[in-house]
């Protein structure tokens, strides 16, 4: 059977919500970044699927995907720099250990 639009949309929606679930439940900062990557990749899948199946003539979706990949890398670079600095001051990359600021 050929995979259709709905199969891909199902996978991408599942990926999105796995990412959201991971973002809310995990406590390790690197894992949080991985969850965000999952969310962004689900969006990429969405764009490619829509472009291929629904709007084959309009390449907006494809270009959008390329830009998302590049920007995700930039975001991860800044985030990892911040996490390294956090590790230097807190000796940990667990969210629960960063608790100076409350209420």
């Amino acid at each position: 059977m050929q995979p259709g639009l709905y199969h891909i949309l199902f996978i991408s929606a599942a990926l999105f919500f796995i990412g959201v679930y991971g973002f809310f439940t995990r406590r390790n900062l690197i894992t949080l970044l991985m969850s965000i990557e999952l969310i962004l990749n689900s969006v990429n899948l969405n764009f490619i699927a829509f472009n291929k199946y629904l709007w084959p003539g309009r390449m907006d979706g494809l270009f959008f995907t390329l830009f998302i990949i590049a920007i995700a890398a930039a975001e991860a670079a800044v985030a990892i720099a911040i996490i390294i600095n956090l590790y230097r001051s807190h000796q940990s990359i667990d969210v629960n250990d960063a608790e100076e600021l409350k209420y």
Partner: protein
Amino acid sequence: MNDLFILMKAEMAVTAIIFLLLFIKVGKGMKNEALLPLIQTLLLVNFIAGFFFNKPGHLFGDMYHTEQGTVLLKNILSLAVYLISLVCAGWLKRTPHLAEFFLLMLSALLGMFLMISSGNLLIFYLALELSSIPVAAMANFDLDKKRSSEGAMKMILSSAFSSGILLFGISLIYGTTGTINFASLPAQLDGSALQVLAFIFLFAAFAFKLSVVPFHLWTADVYEGSPIATTSFLSVVSKGAIAFVLLIVLYHVFRPMYETWIILLMGLSIITMVVGNLFAMRQQNIKRFLAYSSIAQVGFILAAMINGGPAGFAAVAYFILVYTFSNLAAFGVAAVIASQTGKENVDDYKGLYQTNPFLTWIMALALFSLAGIPPTAGFFGKLFLLTAAGEEAAYWFITIAALNMIISLYYYLRVVRAMFIDKNENPLPPVKTGPAEKLGLIICGAGIVLAGMLSWVYDYIYQMIK
């Protein structure tokens, strides 16, 4: 080709300053004492140049467009950045990486300019990231402080998560309409369930960036942890730019879904005002206090957006201008005091009037304006916001908003009371205010008084936006 330089003038100017700073940094470098006045002068020139040689038009196949209204919004943001460079001079002079700080701040400003001018969801997304990633790096500028790195961590995670949500919404919009152009989107929107879902995702991302209530949890922590120049940038420039873009997107792109977003706006506006006010009451740290007060102000901005016409747009632009003056005056006083004594709590301000009358008066003026007490511009700002809301919304809604203004008086006046009336055996010693800081605070104070007294300010904004 000539058109390119005239139409993108604001962006080009900011880019030129960024490159100049970059060359200074990689070249010989300059001492902070010499570099800071240079940057301040450049930012002033940038602000004044914003008023001349403006022309409406489109570029790059409708991806970039500029008109009178967008130029006005950019000028407000340029003014805010110039004022930040003045009022936070004390902290800026001492930071070892002054050039980098302004590189990041101006990159974020460039992103905001592009975001306001964008005519396409792709450019909009790129500009949004350009305006939010550097701010996270700015939040981490006190490298050896635990609080600063924790605030930056919360900032980058929440902004990355919110842009993920935004992208999911955009992908669904692309799937249902087949276009990402602002100009051709409204005709394709039919209000189907999937489009409403996509709109809610998009709106949630905006709410994250604007710190509307269910999504506000990062705000207070980031504001408290960041250095004070970053905090004032976040609370004034970032917030103003996102509010403008939300207005443009709602009014021009999602116009056909008016019935959907008016309900969202009303509900979120009420929750935001109430929760922001209630949390502001119990804050001790002055930055945290201003964070919650700015959340409450966002509730009023959302209320005015309910009016779908130019009156709502002009009211929000005017309010952001007034809010720039009053919030920067408050942050400026807090910055001057914190940079010399290290004190940031409301209790430390007790009896401040005995030793620092100038700072106390500016702070009191700013707080009166934020609370919306008549002779100051803050009153007229709130008046226009609620009038704009009243044209569309029911009276019970306006009543709740007005009641919230009364609640907010309690916590603003608490600080004023601490400064003027409360007795304190040993108040803070007299604080030296540098010339740049004094100039910035005087401009802010004059703005708070004059923007309300001079009626042509609002008329000018209304004319530009119409």
